[in-house]
């Protein structure tokens, strides 16, 4: 679609593979970086010492239940940091619990998608996500890191 990077934060290897397959089948060829837990995601975004990350993705697909640092905490860090506070974050999770939905939106998630069991539905969901967040959505110009 374009050269924007996607950060996928997902600890389940099956879900990771299926998400990558779904992107592939939807002909979304953007670079996808995968973080397997919340700490790795924060390292990628901010660097191990917080001085600066190695990637600046156009959108983050974030699972909630993650080892080490959970998804909501990752979201909180992203929103608290000047460099990433406008970064689109899509919660991609198995949970349909209201408490997770409310917590996610309260912390500033841009969107909440429940992973469907059915792969065809999942393909469609990924298609919509790619279309919206990679093509249609505009975010404010990146702030220079002071």
């Amino acid at each position, binding site marked *: 679609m374009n050269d924007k990077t996607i950060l996928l934060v997902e600890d*389940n290897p*099956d*879900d990771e593979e*299926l998400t990558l397959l779904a992107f592939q089948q939807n002909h979304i060829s953007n670079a996808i970086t995968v973080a397997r837990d919340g700490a790795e995601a924060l390292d990628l975004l901010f660097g191990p010492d917080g001085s600066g990350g190695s990637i600046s993705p156009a959108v983050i697909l974030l699972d909630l239940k993650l080892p080490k640092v959970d998804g909501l905490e990752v979201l909180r860090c992203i929103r608290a940091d000047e460099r990433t506070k406008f970064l689109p974050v899509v919660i991609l999770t*198995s*949970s*349909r*619990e209201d408490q997770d939905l409310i917590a996610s939106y309260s912390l500033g998630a841009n969107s909440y998608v429940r992973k469907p*069991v059915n*792969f065809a539905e999942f393909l469609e969901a990924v298609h919509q996500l790619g279309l919206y967040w990679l093509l249609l959505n505009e975010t404010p110009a990146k702030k220079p890191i002071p």
Partner: protein
Amino acid sequence: MATRLKKNFDDLSPKWRRKRAEATLRESLARFHAATRATGDGFWDWDLATNTSWRNENYQTLFGYSASEISPSIVESWNERIHPDDRERVLSHIHAVIDGTDEFWTDEYRFRRSDGTYADVFDRGYVLRDASGRGMRMVGAIQDITERKQAQARLLAFNAELEQRVARRTRELQDLNQELETFCYSVSHDLRAPLRGIAGFTEILAKNYASALDDTAQGYLGRVRAATHRMGELIDDLLKLSRVSRDQMHRETVDLSAIARDVLANLQHAAPERQVELCIEDGLTAKGDPRLLRILLENLLDNAWKFTSKTPAASITFTASSEGNVPIFAVSDNGAGFDMRYASKLFGPFQRLHRATEFPGTGIGLATVQRIASRHGGRIWAEAEPGKGATFRFSL
């Protein structure tokens, strides 16, 4: 002769009258003693001018004082025997009544017995006033209510203990509920994740590797996919059922007729080819949680819709009647029905009376309906006959 008789009568008359009066007095005194014995109260008569009092013998039996210990001095026989912690309050109250205009005084306080222990007493009196309204005399009765007080205290203690017990049970239940919620959360998340793996990879196998698989292998893949789909439905329904049981209720007046019409319109929209005669009574309302009541009607009407799918001239009705003052709602259909021998199994989770190949379903719907009815303080029951249809009645 007549004059003499009359004179004698006049002579006798005062004597006779005195005798008469004495008899009346004796009778009234006897009645008074009988009354004091009957009540067991300590009677008192207090001369406010001299501050002396008369007390009947019940004082001795009630509090153990000998006759000599009951001084005519009100201060000695009464004031000083009031519990020091109660004394000021009792005295200021009784004097306020005497100095005021009220006729009656009552109070409860602790009164010292001869052995030094205290009795709980209920005391009340009546103020007699002169023409100017000044209190001259006060007459009353004191009653020992120690036992009643103790019983009351025991009752209070028992109540407090009961409340503690209820609080403990409630806490235990809350903990259990919390556990259940955690359990549901992991069912929602953890059970779904592997299922998604199975479903996703079989889908990809079927789609991208179809040429590498023979018909038998493809058939097996189809079975895996169907089973996965069913398991997904079961997990979803189970979660719905648990949510019905634990979500907060918000009671308001709910238009059940409108919900029924809406639900059936959706069903008709999803299956436009079906011709079902619908009869929904207008203006059926109930007090309850609108979201839960919608789920209840959705399940019953879904069932009616499903079980009439093989019935020519299918019909579904939603009506109400009343039993005493309780409205009873009914969803009826003329569909497949069921054998009443299995009616007791109808509302258990995962219980099905039809084969999945006849009518699809997870067996959670009616369990959900029953929980919703019972959360509203109502119940649900059914009547049916195989091939003739079913009627589900519920109260809320």
